[in-house]
């Protein structure tokens, strides 16, 4: 911990916070797997608000959002045995499950459910999150990512929002925006590259 003394106080504090949170997440995942009654309480305290906010943003209905938050945490509770407590990013997994539950709901309302439900279920397997950088939701990284997102062009932001918060495929976006599929793919690819590069820089820093 000697190196912390050489850093500016604010940065040292932020690093300590991240380290403590990550250690907490690993410990929390272990307690969830051990079926400790208070672990679910702690999981909700840590990620309940975030999950509710994501779901509200997608479904825009508080009552539906409550049902979907419950479904999200029950899914995590029921599948946590397959989660790698030592290496996985618990927060990223919970948020992904929350987002997918909300998108599944939107698709069921829009009649887009059939293939989507199986697909999203497959994409939130706990095993997928084993190689994740557990600092995925560290505050400084999210802040940098948001700053990069704000600098995107309006069309780039629009396709990102349609993909992330409405669960649209690129062909659905092309139809919605009345643009050629190639154009939509270009907007999406360029927007994601900017975000990806920003995250890569944040990881190096």
């Amino acid at each position: 911990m000697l190196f912390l003394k050489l850093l500016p106080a604010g940065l040292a504090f932020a690093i300590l916070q991240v380290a403590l949170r990550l250690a907490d997440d690993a410990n929390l995942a272990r307690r969830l797997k051990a079926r400790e009654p208070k672990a679910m309480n702690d999981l909700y305290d840590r990620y309940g608000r975030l999950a509710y906010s994501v779901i509200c943003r997608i479904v825009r209905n508080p009552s539906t959002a409550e049902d979907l938050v419950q479904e999200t945490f029950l899914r995590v509770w029921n599948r946590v045995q397959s989660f790698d407590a030592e290496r996985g990013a618990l927060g990223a997994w919970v948020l992904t499950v929350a987002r997918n539950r909300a998108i599944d709901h939107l698709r069921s309302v829009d009649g887009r459910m059939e293939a989507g439900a199986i697909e999203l279920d497959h994409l939130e397997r706990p095993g997928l999150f084993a190689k994740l950088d557990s600092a995925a939701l560290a505050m400084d990284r999210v802040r940098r990512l948001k700053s990069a997102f704000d600098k995107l062009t309006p069309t780039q932001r629009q396709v990102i929002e349609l993909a992330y918060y409405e669960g649209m495929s690129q062909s659905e976006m092309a139809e919605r925006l009345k643009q050629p599929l190639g154009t939509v793919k270009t907007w999406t690819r360029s927007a994601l590259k900017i975000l990806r590069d920003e995250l890569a820089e944040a990881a190096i820093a």
Partner: protein
Amino acid sequence: MTCQELQEMFELYALGALEPEERTEIEAHLARGCENCGQALANALALNAGVFSFAPSIKPPGRLKRRLLTSVGVHYPGWGWVWALGAVCLLLVAAWLGVEERSRTYELADARRALLESNGERDRLTQALQFLSDPQTRPASFGRGQTAPPRGYVFLHPQMGVLLIASNLPAAGAGKTYEMWVIPKGGTPQPAGLFQSDGMRALHILSGPVDVGAIGTVAVTIEPAAGSFTPTMPIIIAAPIGS
């Protein structure tokens, strides 16, 4: 597609936003155990989670946590016992205040009733004194010399009306009342007001001008509580008015 080209689609793949043929190609590639692409997929999941967290922060309702914990069989005491205790205390205080309030209301109603009765009694006595002190008042008595009849006086005044003071009245009985009658000479009895006795004594006034000379008798009967237009019971008082 090359690994590089595939990796550019991992975020959309993880969102379930790819076309079926693109998804199939990525899954086939990942199934071959490409190490670089495995890490790139993890990075894509991290990016996606970061973008999800852009959602404006909204506080969930408190009931949601209770509901969730209950659904997984976790007892959630929270602060419920404090609210329950508070609610019980409030109920007790409200009940006590209610009883006090009701009791106070009854006391006030009793006092008001007593005051009204007292005021009414005072007014009647004052009116009776005016009768007795006015020189135009003509007295008449009844019941004298009889064994145990009602006894008393009737006073008539041309402007003030008729005053009856009686004692030794027989009990009216449940649902009955006394009714005074003014019987003109050669005429039919006219109702002159209902009254109750206080321990077999009574004071009753018919207010207003009367033709004293035309009155032959002042009488009292026992009638139903609502009174009668003509006497239906035996006359218990009959005070003849002398000319």
